[in-house]
């Protein structure tokens, strides 16, 4: 498949303002990976919450079971549901720990049916979904990482230039984001520093962290690659980190969606489907 190269520079002459300039912003591998990965992460999150329901307690260290201290737990009293973080208990009746299912039956699993795959408790099925889609995540991420390195995406689009590292530049970008002032025209064709750091953080830190903490929980992999236990401080620490990193990905998702909505959802989504992004000096879509 022949893909047009992204423009190195925009045309010298400023285009007539009435005709929007289109730039080829996302190449095919990025678009495919983006959508496959989005669906995969959704399945992994929901099936992961089902697996969590089997033992809704988290520990630090090599071991951890019911008699041991859990730094995080979801539970139920005879009438309420709660989340406990450290020594702080938050009542979550109706959402976490105690909720009512579609048939009107009160349940005391940690995460409610609408958030899990499958909707009613099955650790076996949750694991089937999770451990199948984990392969799609791992293989897709590996291929995409290789492509970003070889295909120039990393060097051209994600590489943070020296000037961008300056605290003043970063602070300026933070202020712009906080004021919801988004780049117009040519600048919108490139990633800004916060975007670059977010995408690098997800692709090269959070997603690999999910995969490696996941592998650390495997007794077979713990034997084959014992360094995993040293890197993450034990199977139960790995399980805690896996859980925290999953929610960081959820947080990224919400910020990502907010930015897409604020920056012009039609133009943004179209560019991730067709590759073409419209630079509009005036109003968005």
């Amino acid at each position, binding site marked *: 498949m022949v893909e047009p190269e992204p423009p190195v520079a925009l045309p010298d002459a400023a285009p007539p303002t009435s005709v929007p300039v289109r730039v080829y912003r996302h190449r095919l591998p990025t678009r495919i990976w983006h959508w*496959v990965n989005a*669906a*995969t992460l*959704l*399945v992994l999150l*929901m099936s992961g919450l089902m*697996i*969590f329901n*089997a*033992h809704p*307690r988290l520990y630090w260290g*090599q*071991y*951890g*079971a*019911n*008699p*041991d201290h859990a730094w995080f737990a979801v539970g139920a009293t005879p009438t309420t549901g709660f989340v406990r973080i450290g020594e702080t208990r938050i009542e979550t009746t109706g959402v976490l720990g105690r909720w009512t299912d*579609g048939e009107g039956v009160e349940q005391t699993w940690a995460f409610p049916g609408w958030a899990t*795959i*499958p*909707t*009613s408790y*099955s*650790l*076996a*099925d949750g*694991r*089937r*979904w999770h*451990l*199948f*889609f*984990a*392969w799609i995540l791992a293989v897709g991420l590996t291929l995409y990482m290789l492509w970003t390195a070889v295909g120039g995406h990393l060097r051209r689009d994600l590489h943070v230039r020296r000037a961008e590292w300056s605290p003043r530049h970063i602070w300026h970008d933070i202020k712009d984001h906080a004021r919801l002032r988004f780049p117009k025209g040519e600048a919108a064709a490139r990633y800004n520093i916060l975007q670059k750091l977010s995408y690098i953080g997800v692709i090269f830190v959070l997603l690999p962290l999910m995969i490696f903490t996941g592998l650390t*929980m*495997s*007794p*077979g*992999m*713990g*034997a*084959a*690659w*014992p360094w995993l*236990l040293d890197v993450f401080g034990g*199977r*139960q620490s790995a*399980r805690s980190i896996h859980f925290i990193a999953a929610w960081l990905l959820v947080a990224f998702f919400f910020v990502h969606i907010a930015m897409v909505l604020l920056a012009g959802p039609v133009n943004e989504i179209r560019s991730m489907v067709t590759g073409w992004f419209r630079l509009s000096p005036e109003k968005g879509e």
Partner: protein
Amino acid sequence: MSDIILPRRRLIAGAGGLVAALPLLSGCDAINDAPVTRKILSMGEEMNRASQRALTDRDALAREFGRADLSPIFRSNGTKLPPGAAYAGHAASGFADWRVKVTGLVAKPLALSMADIRAMPQRTQITRHDCVEGWSAIGEWTGVPLSRVLAAAGLKDRARYIVFRCADRIGDADYYESCDLVDALHPQTILAWALNREALPIANGAPLRLRIERQLGYKHAKYLTGIEAVASLDAIGAGKGGYWEDRIDYEWYAGI
């Protein structure tokens, strides 16, 4: 024309259904239960087994810990006390008449008493027990390596799997499990009769349980009564190789 459309429609239903829309729809449990979904998802288990066997050291040892790392309380799970008068009688007599039969594809079938088992070469290991639910507990186990027992019985060439028979009846059947020869002959795979230097408690599988350290807890069969060498798992239970595998579709390969 319909020849072209039909397979394509099936493809769209299969692939499209699996990926995006499913979990969002209220009818997603129907997809979870569809045979085609289960077939596709079970490929994950096979990929995990095949890749771990192919890419990692088959003899790699599970991490062994020190006594300082022991869980203060070693949690038990599953059967806490096998039902029935027969087991109660064995427990009352200190399992003096307990026998573990070694049968199937072996040259010399055996019926081992607990004294026979303790007289064989022993191994002690402090390892982490990983439950499929997510918790872990570290304990010190002593027992005879399964490889020693199988060597004494003379494993025949046709033997491919080892099946474990148990005394704990759950619902409609006695518990059973199985593993391949890679794990059966692994040096840390032992028939344990002691936990933390004490006789194995009843809740943890007295008088004898399997330790198969690179797999999850439900593979570690408790209350062992029989060890059977077989060429195929087809005739064992419903054919998936274990009690929970046959009933709720837990993975047979529980190395992940």
